[in-house]
């Protein structure tokens, strides 16, 4: 993987401009707010709290475009951050942990949402997925923030 990151480094995208990197990071954060909000309302609903009087499928479908929109924004800005500071990402344990957990979280979220979108009420066995999802996505956000703080 190192040669790829070194090649990214050679592109010098946003090099020398702290403002470019900061703007990308701030946009990443704003997309996170929309994404995590849309994830939370469904996860809380799975746990029987939050918008609990609405059919589960309604909450899932209504949150969906905001979840995907927020994620798309995070994917673009997140990728740009890696392109702008590839070596920082490559040598960060937090970055790699975040990427691995992301794969797990994305699969979990897609599976849970596709089941939930077809049901008015969460089956008992699906409820814990709400808590796992909240903890998983929060932990990913924690790792993301730590990339910039722990070297």
């Amino acid at each position, binding site marked *: 993987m190192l040669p790829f990151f070194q090649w990214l480094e050679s592109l010098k995208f946003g090099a020398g401009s702290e403002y470019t990197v*900061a703007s990308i990071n701030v946009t990443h954060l704003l997309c996170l707010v929309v994404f995590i909000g849309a994830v939370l309302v469904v996860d809380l609903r799975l746990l029987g*709290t939050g918008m609990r009087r609405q059919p589960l499928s309604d*909450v899932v479908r209504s*949150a969906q475009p905001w979840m995907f929109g927020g994620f798309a924004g995070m994917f673009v800005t997140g990728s740009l951050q890696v392109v702008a500071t590839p070596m920082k990402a490559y040598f960060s344990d937090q970055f790699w942990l975040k990427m691995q957990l992301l794969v797990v979280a994305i699969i979990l979220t897609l599976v849970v949402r596709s089941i939930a979108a077809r049901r008015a009420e969460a089956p008992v066995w699906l409820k814990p997925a709400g808590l796992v999802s909240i903890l998983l996505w*929060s932990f990913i956000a924690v790792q993301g923030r730590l990339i910039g703080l722990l070297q």
Partner: protein
Amino acid sequence: MIRSWFEWIDAMPSSIAIRESVFGYPYLLTAHAVSMALFAGLIVMMDLRLLGWAYKRTPLSQVQKQLFPWQMFTMAVSSVTGAILFYGQPLRYYGKVFFWTKMALMLFAGINALYFHFTTYRTVAAWDTTDQPPTGAKLAGALSIVLWAGVVIFGRITAYNWMTFTE
């Protein structure tokens, strides 16, 4: 006056202890940022309902009441961690324009929420189930999104040393 008060906090042994702890800053800041994202996310979801852009089949008052406890919980975590961060480095934040801008935006966001609650929201029974709330409600939702986005933006860039003054 404010400066001397900040200096007084700065000299406290407990403030120095936070400032000098190796992991205090990164982990506190991370807890603050992540709880803030969760809080703002739940606020934005409610604002989207106010704007008539999401959760349209759910009465507005239900979205508001059911998300409220979680908004308060995440805000509490964010406020406590934020207060400890400030307590550890009061003089650092004193000279930061972005920090004060963030405080002002939070104040405006609070005023916006209270103003809406005591004006437009009083007649909620009349438009609770409509997917397009009255203009006053939409305005409150839009303002809330803009103001909280501002809080997130200025909170993040407070970490940089731009627009920072030291005496």
